[in-house]
């Protein structure tokens, strides 16, 4: 069956450390993967996108990797700050571009 999974547990890390979130998928052929941030009571906000032919993308303190062999994307936040505390969602866009499948999200707490 098709599914997308993210870190099953909430992630708590110390301020200044690197947070690493995982997104695994099965039985999909994605055009690309997106990562979003969602704060309580708000809609998701787009962070980064990585295409299936790209290995890595960076934006400021954020880095995303994509391994189509492992069917996995990793999302890194370096030098984490308490303001980075939120739920992070990965989303897979199918090769036909007609479906967007979101993972369940990972709750990240950065402790001062």
């Amino acid at each position, binding site marked *: 069956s098709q599914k997308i999974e993210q870190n099953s547990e909430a992630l708590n890390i110390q301020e200044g450390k690197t947070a690493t979130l995982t997104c695994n998928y099965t039985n999909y052929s994605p*055009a690309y993967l*997106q990562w979003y941030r969602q704060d309580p009571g*708000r*809609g*998701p*906000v*787009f962070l980064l*996108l990585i295409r299936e032919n790209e290995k890595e993308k960076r934006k400021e303190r954020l880095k995303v990797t994509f391994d189509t062999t492992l069917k996995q994307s990793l999302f890194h936040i370096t030098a984490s700050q308490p303001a980075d505390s939120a739920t992070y*969602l990965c*989303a897979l866009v199918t090769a036909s*571009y*007609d*479906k*967007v*499948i*979101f*993972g*369940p*999200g990972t709750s990240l707490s950065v402790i001062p």
Partner: protein
Amino acid sequence: GAGVSQSPSNKVTEKGKDVELRCDPISGHTALYWYRQSLGQGLEFLIYFQGNSAPDKSGLPSDRFSAERTGGSVSTLTIQRTQQEDSAVYLCASSPSRQANEQFFGPGTRLTVL
């Protein structure tokens, strides 16, 4: 400029009633998406519009759900004969095209069915 707006922000209804949720996308965005998010859960894809057309309606949970988009702009999601399990936050997003890099989300409509 204005972002995606949704109305109402909150809706409380009684089981069995019909509800209509509205989404105003960013002007010029041709792609529009509807999602449902239950408490503590991820986003469940419901339907996607390219212009006024919805190529795939298979994400709608049941035949009580329908959606339309007119003039390539405003979209409405209608839930008939609401059930308690329909309680969730309904999110709308738009993007410049279906191949665009990102979706812009509205604040959502919180639906509570008593």
